[in-house]
């Protein structure tokens, strides 16, 4: 099963389903940090170009499933305003063996972070805000 989802609701990392006969599951969770480059971050805003984000996200899940023989591949990305400590993104990759599960999970989060059209604005203690610069 594969699913890429964009949500403005709280991500509860406990909702990720289970299935038997899997063997290995690798989960990655990215949460809002309170410090970034020396600034005190008080909250984050994520914005998304949704229709393209979902297409590109599903493409990444397909690629990961094929490359690493994943059984399940999920990714949920939060948008809207997030408080410190809240989950921004969660990835789940399952496979018969741990090497594939780890590599698949890593592939998905790496590709999501560089290909899926989502942008992050930091709000600082001093009232300033800043859209983060991407690597691209």
């Amino acid at each position, binding site marked *: 099963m594969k699913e890429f989802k964009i949500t403005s609701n709280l991500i509860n990392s406990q909702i990720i389903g289970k299935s038997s006969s899997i063997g290995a599951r690798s989960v990655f969770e*990215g949460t809002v940090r309170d410090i970034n480059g020396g600034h005190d971050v008080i909250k984050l805003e*994520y*914005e*998304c*170009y949704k*229709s*393209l984000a979902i*297409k*590109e996200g599903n493409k990444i899940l397909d690629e990961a499933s094929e490359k690493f023989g994943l059984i399940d591949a999920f990714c949920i*990305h939060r948008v809207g305003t997030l408080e410190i400590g809240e989950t*921004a*993104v969660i990835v789940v990759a399952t496979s018969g063996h741990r090497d594939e599960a780890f590599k698949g999970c890593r592939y998905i*989060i790496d590709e*999501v*972070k*560089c*290909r*899926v*059209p*989502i*942008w*992050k*604005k930091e709000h600082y203690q001093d009232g300033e805000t800043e*859209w*983060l*610069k*991407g*690597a*691209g």
Partner: protein
Amino acid sequence: MENILQIQVIYFAKLRDLIGLDREIYSMEEGNNPSDVLASIKKKHNIDIGTNFKIAVNDEFSQWDIKLNNGDRLVFIPPVTGG
């Protein structure tokens, strides 16, 4: 007389903040491409927003030199920072 293309441009994130709008319609000449639209945006708003974008046309990644069609929805995508 040449045909005029109505191109919808949608802005996200930093680009929307810079332009101050979330969408605009540009009237372009037949044969124009996303580069031409970017030039029109710079001229109209008199700001240099650079060229560090990917392009999406009708919600598909596209190229800078693709010929646009009437009614196309064009997005300039700044470097992404999700995750």
